[in-house]
């Protein structure tokens, strides 16, 4: 039986809303008509819309129901894998994506999804191997490049991550992930001006996201946080070592007064570092929406 034209229109509207990143409107469009449940497109649109709304459990349920009708459908298996991965149910996610790869073992998107699942599970060597295979199949794939970038950053290979982010930006100068990653790397190094610019470009793409990052930028940019710069930049270990070495050095050099002053300054700084950031953070939270 063919879908009536009104049903086709509703599905087209839902599909369009999904394309333009309005998943709730997509669901509303689907709900407005009692659509043909034998049309896999209806399930696919609903599932991906639920995922975009962060309703991961509902998305997984939708995928499972669809798989009950169309077992071994690669698209629904991938949807299930992504939904379960977002819920951090990695065993289930792995199961789903491996089932999809059993059907299409060389599909780069599926391999990339598997690499993402492995990365979430901190199986970084395995994730790298899967990405290598994906790269063999699709050497120019930006999906693979994105996962490599995530993997490099997760592994702590910051220089490699930076290079990959720049490579991503060569494909598209406004690439969201590229700017976010470079912003995060600049933030780690406390290059606030550069971080602000990068995060600004990313925010222009998707201002509803990165709330945590922008809040961190506000925190670090607050004048009351300036004395914290050494700890933020180098970490507490080196700063403690430098402070203790300075204090002992002054003592060894016979500069008793200077040593005493250094001890006081260091104690004040310790108290400051333990109290002021929390107060600033609390104030920023009060000013937030």
């Amino acid at each position, binding site marked *: 039986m063919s879908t009536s034209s009104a049903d086709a229109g509703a599905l087209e509207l839902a599909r369009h809303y999904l394309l333009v990143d309005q998943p709730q409107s997509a669901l509303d469009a689907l709900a407005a008509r009692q659509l043909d449940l034998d049309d896999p497109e209806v399930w696919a649109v609903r599932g991906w819309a639920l995922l975009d709304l*962060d309703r991961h459990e509902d998305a997984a349920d939708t995928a499972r129901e669809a798989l009950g009708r169309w077992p071994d459908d690669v698209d629904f298996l991938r949807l299930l894998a992504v939904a379960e991965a977002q*819920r*951090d*149910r*990695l*065993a289930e*996610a*792995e*199961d789903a994506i*491996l*089932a999809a*790869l*059993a059907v299409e*073992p060389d599909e780069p998107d599926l391999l990339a999804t*598997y690499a993402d*699942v*492995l*990365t*979430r*599970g*901190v*199986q*970084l060597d*395995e994730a790298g*191997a*899967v990405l290598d*295979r994906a790269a063999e199949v699709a050497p120019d794939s930006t999906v693979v490049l994105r996962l490599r970038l*995530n993997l490099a*950053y*997760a*592994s*702590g290979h910051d220089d490699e991550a930076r290079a990959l982010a720049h490579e991503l930006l060569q494909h598209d100068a406004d690439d969201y992930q590229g700017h976010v990653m470079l912003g995060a790397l600049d933030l780690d190094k406390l290059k606030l001006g550069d971080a602000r610019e990068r995060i600004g470009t990313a925010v222009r793409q998707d201002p509803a*996201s990165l*709330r*945590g990052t922008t*809040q961190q930028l506000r925190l670090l940019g607050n004048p009351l946080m300036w004395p914290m710069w050494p700890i933020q930049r180098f*970490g*507490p*270990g080196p700063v*403690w*070592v430098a402070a*203790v070495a300075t204090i002992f050095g002054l003592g060894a050099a016979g500069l008793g007064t200077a040593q005493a002053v250094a001890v006081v300054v260091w104690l004040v700084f310790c108290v400051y570092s333990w109290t002021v950031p929390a107060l600033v953070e609390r104030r920023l*939270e009060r000013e*937030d929406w």
Partner: protein
Amino acid sequence: MPRTGDALLTPTLTDHRPRDYTGSIERPPWRTGSLVYGAILGGPLALLILALFDAGRLRAPAGTAQRIAAVCVACLVASVTVARLLGLDAGGRLVVGLFGLLAFVPVRRSLLPADRIRAMYAPDDDEAVVYESIFAVTVGVVFFSLLVTVLLDAIVGEVL
């Protein structure tokens, strides 16, 4: 589900349990940078204890715990031996602290991926990524490790 015979496509995450980001079910991890206090004040043993707990909370893979243990034990033995050989008693604390700091660098490096992944894949919510304060635990672990280090120091002294 059918599986290929491909070694790359065999399950590795069968034991994974979903993370609790809010800290309501599981104890949240400590910030990896904060382990330095235990390392400096309590030496490699304190760092070993704190880092192993943190690795568990961060769901770091088994290899991470093994690396941490290897580094910390090596630095512990080295610190006690060096302190002994140099005849340092009061200054032994300095040697312990220095070896603790030496161990801290690779230990932090080992924990970094698990920590970053936990933050990267946390739900997109301002309050999603929770860390626990390490202060009280550090004090306790430092005292414990200092006691053990003294004991170890005595045993090594007998042996040497």
